[in-house]
């Protein structure tokens, strides 16, 4: 029978002098910690296979991060497979502020070491907590607006970014609407001990960026808010928060920052994060009653790893079968429309996509997305359209198709179709 162990480690950097955070520029160096960053580890084992799923509060998982963490895993569990994704947290990954200095470099290196050590600590704890589990999964519709598509389509057909506080509309034009879909669901995998009334572990996948505003503080952003609220609501449930297919969906669209001074903006961020967490955990909580669990005997795993032009431009797609349910680890920043492509004639009963693995191909728009433009589609497409030459390159118009095809093939193979 399937076994699961779960654990969490705090991975907040402890030194932040001359440091800022990768992802969104700040005008001042980091000032401290708003709330802690987290590494979550789920260890899944059947009789012979082990798969370790890890999420990190980082803007990206780099190729180096993947290698470093994989090396630590192999020391402990030589045959284990690793699925590791970031929460795409923009208030997490330490980088030097302004001109590089020895101090800044040392602080950033220390921050990475804390993250790697956090993984090892959580892995060890999870292995001490292995329990037999049954699995359930479902897609939960959201009754409220949380993540919204952040590309505004103009009347000339072009798009403009609509984050922060709506789109800038040029004179003589109108914004005809959002260019793509909103994040109107949460995918969830639930694990409970056989016969238990409630799960003790949830893996959620919500297709939206998690940041609201570029505070100069380390914070778990809305992922941290969701985990915190879930802990308060259900202390016995460990929530691992991951991102679905959400390159063009964000939290910011509907939340113009109401004030201009820094302390008020930080207070606003805390309030909005808590509100998101409360809404998110309420939806998860309400869905727990209706879950149908089944026992799973075997884990099946598939992986496609293709080197890219550069290390970070590798193409990594991983799939996992747990009974009738599947999980896919995919590169980040795919437009939400790709979720529908991935699910077309789906071979599994439910599918949970986790994005932002170490394959960093930038934004992955649809063909029409490239034609519409906006920030996410401003770089590309590359001129060459030959799949093998562009599969691992940023800005390729067919990257999304290639990724979806790899994942669909893996799923078809795992489900014998």
């Amino acid at each position, binding site marked *: 029978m399937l076994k699961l162990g779960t654990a969490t480690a705090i991975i907040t950097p402890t030194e932040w002098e001359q440091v800022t955070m990768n992802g969104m*520029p700040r*005008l001042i160096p980091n000032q401290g910690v708003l709330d802690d960053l987290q590494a979550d580890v789920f260890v899944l084992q059947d009789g012979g296979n082990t798969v370790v799923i890890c999420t990190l509060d980082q803007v990206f998982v780099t190729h180096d991060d993947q290698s470093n963490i994989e090396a630590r895993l192999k020391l402990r569990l030589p045959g284990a497979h690793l699925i590791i994704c970031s929460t795409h947290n923009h208030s997490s990954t330490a980088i030097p502020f302004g001109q590089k200095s020895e101090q800044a470099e040392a602080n950033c290196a220390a921050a990475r070491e804390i993250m790697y050590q956090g993984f090892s600590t959580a892995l060890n704890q999870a292995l001490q907590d292995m329990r037999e589990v049954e699995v359930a999964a479902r897609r939960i519709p959201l009754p409220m607006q949380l993540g919204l598509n952040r590309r*505004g*389509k*103009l*009347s*000339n*057909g*072009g*798009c*403009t*970014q*609509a984050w*922060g*506080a*709506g*789109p*800038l*509309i*040029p*004179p*003589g034009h*109108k*914004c*005809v*609407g*959002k260019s793509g879909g909103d994040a109107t669901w949460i995918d969830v995998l639930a694990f409970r001990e056989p016969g238990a009334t409630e799960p003790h572990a949830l893996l959620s996948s919500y297709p939206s960026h998690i940041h609201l*505003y570029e505070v100069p503080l380390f914070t778990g952003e809305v992922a941290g808010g969701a985990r915190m609220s879930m802990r308060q609501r259900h202390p016995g449930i460990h929530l691992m928060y991951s991102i679905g297919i959400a390159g063009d969906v964000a939290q910011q*669209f*509907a939340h*113009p*920052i*109401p004030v*201009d001074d820094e302390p008020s903006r930080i207070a606003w961020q805390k309030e909005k994060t808590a509100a998101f967490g409360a809404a998110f955990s309420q939806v998860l909580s309400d869905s727990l009653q209706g879950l149908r669990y089944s026992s799973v005997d075997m884990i099946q795993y598939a992986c496609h790893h293709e080197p890219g032009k550069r290390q970070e431009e590798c193409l990594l797609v991983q799939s996992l079968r747990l009974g009738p349910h599947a999980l896919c680890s995919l590169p980040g920043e795919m437009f939400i429309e790709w979720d529908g492509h991935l699910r077309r004639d789906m071979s599994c009963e439910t599918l949970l996509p986790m994005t932002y693995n170490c394959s960093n191909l*930038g934004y992955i728009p649809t063909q029409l997305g*490239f*034609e*519409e*433009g*906006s*920030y996410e*589609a*401003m*770089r*590309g*497409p*590359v*001129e060459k359209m030959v799949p093998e030459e562009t599969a691992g*390159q*940023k*800005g390729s*118009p067919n990257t999304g198709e290639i990724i979806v095809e790899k994942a669909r093939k893996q799923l078809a193979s795992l489900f014998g179709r």
Partner: protein
Amino acid sequence: MGNFHNILKEALRSNDPLLAAEAARLIGEWNGKSLVPDLIENALSSRFYSKVSAIYALVALLAVEAVPGLEKLLNAPNVPDDFYWTGYKGVRAAAAVALLQFGSDAGVAYLQELAEAGDCVFSRWYAPALLRLKPVPELQPYLTLEKLCSLEERNAFDEVPYTDAGQLCMLCEALGLINDPAAVESLEFYMNFHSRYVRGQAYRSLHLRQADEATARRICANAERHGTDFERLVAAEIRQDSAILLEVARQAPLAFDRASALDALVRISSPHLAEACLVGLEDGDTHVRQCAVEGLARSKHPAARNHLAGLLDKETESRVRCAIAATMLQKEETPC
């Protein structure tokens, strides 16, 4: 009439930035002068970047009483400072351009500052609007072909070309207005760009510069070769071909194309406009229905007013309700 007012007022205050912007645009386009105080209030108090639509509406309504507010927005736009993007600068630029339209040069220095920095807010998003104004001597040196196209050189990032189609649509619009015959060469390049929307704008701008039969034929041939509905409808508008526009309005798979075809039928004053709009009113897409409402109101169809009044009761989408309210309000406010 009160009901129409309330629908638009409520939408202006909505926390949906797109709805509020649409309400503002509709008030401006449909001459809702009685709502000028609400537009001023929206421009000053809203925290959305999309409130620029209220600024444009105030200009359209020649609301000179908005000038003190615009002067305030020029330096304190009351929106989040997204310093590395376009929203904060864009609201300031919108105020500056509006002030120019009201005859004040209070915002010229700011526009010059943006231009000097090579900012896309100037050279992309506001260049067409500035090129439509009476030339401003301080800004003319920045509104040249060379200056406007210079952003294209920023294409070395990650070895992937910098080709934001959204911005290039605006560039192509500017290339249709710029006083330099060499702009034609750039437009011809964009007629074969990877984006149908950039190509479409290039067609429009080229035709604006060279409204001759040979150019129209070349545009149509290019549009046929690429084969997208969007380009077909742009070419059909240039040829004033209602039949193709009707076909796209009814059958195009993309809602945006169906709506754009309705807008094109309005622009060519097609005798088939009302017929197409009545079909469009039944469309499942909000934007198509909205365009159909505005198109029907412009069609001079004798039953348009009654039809639109009846629609208000069954339409649930706020954007479409705003369109109905704006068109009905104009009919009530405009003296016979």
